[in-house]
């Protein structure tokens, strides 16, 4: 870990301005991700701008949807009655993440910007294109069991690690971003992340100094009937091997609308519109689910140790759909 300066921002504008003018500065919210990265020398920042005094708070439900302030803690949102009732998939994805201690500290905004758990990325002794552009990707034919089968490139196959994001892309969440000029823009989460391509070090659309201030999720019938299923190496406190966020609106036995996204398999949170399309208009049965789930992995390009994810991803979708349909 390097030496760094620390400052507490009094306003979003101040935070954005300070950070924009210093390319080695970084925001810090809960610090559960950032401090880890700095201790492992993966990221070096000369200045940390603390966001915790900002009022980016609130969990508000309206007719149009849910709005969550970026500084809300994962535990508070995960246990919030409005979220539990109306957006169970979000609550479940949060409560299946990390540990209670981490969730108490970690912010919603920080969660969206956590970085991959790829073991090569996490150890500066290895080459890694994401960490050091152009240095190579030992994961391609190394230990890639936990890495992505979708959205990868020959440059990088790192999995996006967030559970929350899987639920959020399924429900078409949007981010509110604010820059140093005080200008805000709204970006669908699905567009926010970038596929690795040849530039795996560029992970999202965030501009220097730009802050995430809020997350909004549109209200929908399929959001109320939603579920998050996470398959992992132990019962709790492990990243997903494969996960599925699903929502269904079933009326009279027929699926009216569906949302399906996968975690643990994609280089970004992976929504599967083809699966959703194949579900709509069909009876909510296991056969329907199975046929639709097969479409999720059509484009999969597995490596040696993660081939199983092709099968496991489909099964996870089917099981999650069975849970909500029950």
């Amino acid at each position, binding site marked *: *870990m*390097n*030496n760094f300066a620390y400052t507490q921002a009094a306003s979003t504008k101040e935070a954005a301005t300070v950070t924009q003018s210093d390319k080695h500065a970084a925001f810090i919210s809960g610090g559960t991700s950032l401090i880890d990265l700095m201790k492992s*020398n993966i990221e070096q920042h000369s200045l940390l701008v603390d966001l915790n005094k900002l009022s980016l708070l609130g969990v508000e439900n309206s007719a149009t949807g849910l709005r969550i302030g970026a500084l809300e803690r994962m535990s508070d949102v995960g246990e919030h009655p409005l979220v539990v009732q109306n957006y169970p998939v979000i609550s479940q994805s949060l409560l299946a993440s990390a540990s209670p201690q981490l969730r108490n500290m970690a912010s919603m905004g920080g969660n969206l910007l956590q970085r991959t*758990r790829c*073991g*090569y990325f*996490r*150890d*500066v*002794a*290895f080459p890694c294109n994401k960490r050091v552009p152009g240095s190579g990707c*030992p994961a391609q*034919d*190394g*230990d890639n*069991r936990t890495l992505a089968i979708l959205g990868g490139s020959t440059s990088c196959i790192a999995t996006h690690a967030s559970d929350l994001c899987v639920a959020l892309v399924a429900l078409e969440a949007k981010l509110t971003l604010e820059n140093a000029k005080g200008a805000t823009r709204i970006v669908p989460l699905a567009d926010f992340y970038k596929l690795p391509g040849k530039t795996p070090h560029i992970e999202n659309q965030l501009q220097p100094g730009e802050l995430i201030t809020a997350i909004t999720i549109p209200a929908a019938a399929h959001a109320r009937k939603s579920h998050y299923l996470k*398959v*992992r*190496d*132990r*019962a*709790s*406190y*492990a*990243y997903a*091997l494969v996960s599925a966020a699903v929502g269904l609106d079933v009326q009279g036995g027929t699926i009216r609308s569906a949302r399906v996204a996968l975690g643990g398999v994609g280089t970004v949170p992976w929504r599967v519109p083809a699966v959703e399309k194949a579900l709509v208009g069909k009876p909510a049965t296991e056969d329907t689910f199975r046929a639709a789930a097969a479409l999720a992995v059509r484009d999969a390009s597995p490596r040696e140790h993660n081939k*199983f*994810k092709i*099968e*496991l991803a489909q*099964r*996870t979708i*089917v*099981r999650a759909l069975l849970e909500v349909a029950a």
Partner: protein
Amino acid sequence: MSSEPQFFDQPGGFVGKPLVRVEGREKVTGKAKYSAEFPLPGLTYGVLATSPIAKGKIQSIDTTAAAKELGVIAVLTHQNLPKLAKTPDSPEGKKATSAPMGFMPLTSDEIFYAGQPVALVVADTLDHAIYAATLVKVNYAPESPIANFHDARAKLFNPAQVQDGKVDGHKRRGDAKTAFASAPIQLTATYTHPIYHHNPMEPGSTTAHWEAPDRLTVYESTQGVTRTQTTLVAMTGLPREQVRVITKYLGGGFGCKGSCWPHTVLTVQAAKAVGRPVQLMLTRKQQFTSMGHREDQSQTLQLGATADGKLTSLIHTKQSTTSPWDEYAESNSKIINLLYACPTFEASYEMARANVMTSTFMRAPGEAPGSFALECSMDDLAARLGVDPIEIRLRNHADHDYSTGQPWSSKSLKQCYARGAELFGWSKRNPKAGQTRDGRYLVGMGMATASYPVHSSQGTARARLYADGHAVVQSGATDLGTGTYTVMTQVAADSLGLPIEKVRFELGDTNLPTAPNSGGSIAAGTVSSSVFMAAQDVWQRLIKIAVGDKKSPLYKAKPEDVTVEKGRLFLKKDPKKGEGYADLMKRADLTDIEGMGRGRYGAGYETGHAASPAGPGNNTESAAEHSMHSFGAHFCEVRVDMDLGIIRVSKWVSVMGAGRILNAQTARSQIIGGAIFGIGSVLMEATERDAKYSRYTNADLANYHVPVNADIPNMTVEFVEEHDPYINAMGVKGIGEISMVGVAAAVANAVYHATGKRLRDLPLTPEKVMMAGVAS
């Protein structure tokens, strides 16, 4: 001694009771001091810089930037570190230094494994040292490393000995090959498991303080202060009395702290170089490459049996990875040789050198993986013959130790099977595999036999009884966090007839009477026997005083006619005639009286020499008249979600026969701790070493998974009452390791029973379970 110590079990006694930890309050209030928590005056902080590559040479090291950094006192490398008196880089050197690995970092420019220390930065604060360590610039000439025995370039060879020279690399009893060839039932199976790491909560840590140019005190996170002292004596060249090692509290060890590793020696040298005390604590990542691990291995077991399931032959081979200098492999074959009544046996080992750190003993070294192979194969045999798994084991019950021909000192295995089956509800088990469903889950029941030797050892303790009714009892043992302080206080209190709060037990210091390493499950038996014997010595001394004291009611009595109960000395034949020790000591003008005791392996209360001093010859396992082992059985129920490949342990029962149990609560904790350790090894634990770089890719606790509470059901533990008159004065066998022996097999057998699939490649992660279902 001619009879079992009895008074403990009387009303009001402490031994055996579920007493809470005597040091519990110290720990939860943060007062307990671990080895990196001694703020000595002038303390400095050491941080290691380690090699990114696994093989090659250091071409140059530039320490200028690091040395210039704020607070930096020294940057030590192979170029400027003080030389050691002895290094372990030859077989003789290794023996002399008692080092677990035959190489000492920072002695040359060669790199043998990833994570090898290349520099040690000492600074005034930990933060300064951490940062400066990142500034040490090393140029390497890398070469292509070998990561494991699977590498095409790796050369397998047969070692003469395994387990650090303690076990023969090839063992034969009868003609196992011929017996196998003619056996009506022949089973051959290969079992594999990955690298496992001990990962104690407290990483390795050292505070080294040269109190004078020729006097060294080291606060060390070790399972054995004396063994650490031995290594430091050899490497520093100091006389033994000038090296003091202190370990007041330990945050777990599991074997990785059973030896003195290079980082400790480096810290000692650094302290010498800077002339100030140096504290060094390994990071979690460094822990993975600094204190050994359980080696990655593949074992093949051939089992021959008669048509009714009686074993005729067991042939075991093992392949594993070892380091460039050592020939370490766990001796899996030991338990396979003795667990059942099998007339023939053969075992051999193969290993290949790779660019890895030396592996080392890890909880039940050999017994844990060996029992996985044997107990799964026994389960296969039962399934093959359609016989209940307990029945197949009873048919092969060993009424003596077939590996040595010795009788057992005691064995309660049949009672363990019976009681375990009853507690578990084994009779409800469907004889057919793959038939029991509960909704989505396939339900299975499995069991396995557990066994662990009582290893030879000896130790000493001192008891000082004060006339005012207090006592201090001491032995240089260590408490791994498992309850040594507590159980020894209990034994001391009962032996001295004092209330528990009047006794203080001290340990963890080479200035105290010497005790063995707390490893190999020997501490409880050896140290408790030492404590008991020390108390007996106190009484013998007091009796001598009493019978020579005209004013004593016992004046002129024969010492052998006098006995002691709860602090009162009296005539055996006329209990009214006697007095308390306080009166006696007052008259004799004694503030206190001290006794010494030596607890020894094989010196049980029936053997007649419990009270005699240790002599050469009668202190080794082969010289003993009896084969001494704990036995037990684990029972496991799993629920398997075959679609998603998820195994959940839903019920657990362990029943053990392990001699006298000193504390019902700490003993239960040991058993569930070991069982959970085993469940981790079978379901989730694995250290991944990249095959090209020979470097770990998950060296942290986020990605090296150990069980969390949600993985573990309620566990039932029972001990069968067992009186072993031969093992040691207290009749205590030790339970730290038997707790995990057989656990992996019990789970895997339950998975087999649930699914009808036999999985032999650990850990049983979701994809293996799911794909086993796909294949059918």
